[in-house]
């Protein structure tokens, strides 16, 4: 039995005039500790699927099982969600932001608090706890958002294009950081991206989506040699460009 099981998800957005099908026939399995990517052009339903996995709204049909149990957002923090922007609360300090999840379940004291604040130094933000988000750079803010997500110890992390608003250098550094932290905590993760290179460098498996309605078009296994490397080094491996070319061609063919 797999860790996360996604079965026959269909999703249609209804409005007064239209019924737009965003997702059709989505089925996939993710094992514990795996890192998978959803890759595809914008509008192919990646965010929709992630929101459904996060339990933000139910799919029109289909089901999702985490360790054989149906998912709910308000259960025991099985899900951590990171968005394209950090969405740190500007009126809270970094520390208060990171403790937010614990505060909501009234656990932001004692040992839990100390453990959480240690997370800040894990993501390289030691000593910034008393600052406000506006005093931090984009990359630092996104790291704080990562710490906030990890603070509640989720079983699975959902990353919705978390690097796409960053400049290239910051993005490469943050990819490495997220990769290493998730590996060291043994977390399962789903990354949404439209960047082929990022998908190859970070994940174990890549699901390529086609649009209208969003479907899984192809699945690519990333070779073991690349999986073991950090994203930065993976980008320099010969297997990387081969896989890049293959996926590039598939994406091109999708457009026609």
């Amino acid at each position, binding site marked *: 039995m797999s860790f996360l099981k996604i079965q026959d998800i269909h999703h249609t957005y209804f409005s007064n005039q239209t019924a737009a099908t965003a997702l059709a026939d989505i089925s996939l399995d993710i094992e514990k500790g795996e890192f998978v990517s959803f890759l595809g052009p914008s509008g192919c339903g990646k965010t929709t699927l992630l929101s459904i996995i996060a339990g933000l709204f139910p799919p029109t049909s289909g089901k999702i099982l985490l360790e054989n149990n149906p998912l709910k*957002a308000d*259960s025991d*923090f099985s899900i951590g*969600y990171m968005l394209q*922007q950090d969405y740190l609360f500007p*009126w809270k300090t970094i520390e208060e932001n990171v403790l*937010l999840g614990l505060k909501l379940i009234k656990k932001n004291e004692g040992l839990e608090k100390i453990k959480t604040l240690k997370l800040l130094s894990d993501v390289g933000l030691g000593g910034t706890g008393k600052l406000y988000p506006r005093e931090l750079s984009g990359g630092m803010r996104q790291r704080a958002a990562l710490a906030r997500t990890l603070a*509640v110890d989720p079983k699975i992390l959902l990353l919705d294009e978390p690097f796409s608003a960053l400049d290239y250098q910051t993005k490469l550094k943050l990819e490495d950081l997220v990769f290493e932290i998730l590996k060291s905590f043994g977390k399962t993760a789903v990354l949404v991206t439209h960047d082929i290179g990022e998908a190859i460098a970070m994940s174990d498996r890549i699901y390529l989506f086609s649009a209208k309605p969003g479907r899984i078009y192809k699945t690519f296994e990333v070779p073991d040699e690349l999986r073991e490397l950090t994203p930065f080094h993976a980008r320099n491996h010969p297997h990387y460009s081969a896989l890049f070319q293959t996926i590039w061609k598939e994406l091109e063919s999708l457009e026609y």
Partner: protein
Amino acid sequence: MNIEQLHSQYKTSLKKENRLIRFYQILIFIVFFSSWELFSRMRWIDPLIFSSPSKVWHLFIKKLGDGTLLSHSGVTLFETVLGFIIGTLLGTILASLLWWSPRLSKTLDPYLVILNAMPKVALGPIIIVAFGPGFPSIISMGAIISIIITTIVVYTAFREVDPNYLKVLQTFGATRAQSFREAILPASFPTIISTLKVNVGLSWVGVIVGEFLVSAKGLGYLIIYGFQVFNFTLVMLSLMIIAFFATIMYQLVELLERKLIKD
């Protein structure tokens, strides 16, 4: 030329500019009052109607001495502050209820539009009949004039909060009450403060009109009384005291704004 020199030059020019502006402000003040005094003494304007600064000043000293001014100002100030607080508070609470229940908000929408378009002071006579000709009526007037507009403005601010903040909270399993406290309310603080500023002016309108109608006590009563006995010096004095207190209230709200909103 080094940076420090340039910087001090910049600072001096800034100071000079500020001094100049202050000078013009004081000039306007002096020109206004001295020409008022002069015109009145030369009878270019009717001193019976427009009075004069010196007469207003003498009346001020006299009324201050016999204690009537203090008691009338005290009453009006009390009513205005209370009307202002009640209006803002009820408006914000109403906005929270509308946010809480989208169905309620949709249902009430046309009624809010009507109530907002309605000139609230026209309700004065009904309020006075309902609450009696005393300060409860006047406070209600001060409050009712700002409730609906506060509700509409604050509710709009609640709805404009970036839904992604709610998404973050929702993935942490936050309840609706928690979402309200952690995101909706603090994100709307700037709007709430700016409605406070508008409400200062509105509650003065409500209270003064209320005092016109009840005609028993307060600065509004002094204006109406001065008008009826043709004592325009009293009217002018009351107006100036209103301007003074309204300005102070506005400044206090600005102080609160600087305290509450750090970014």
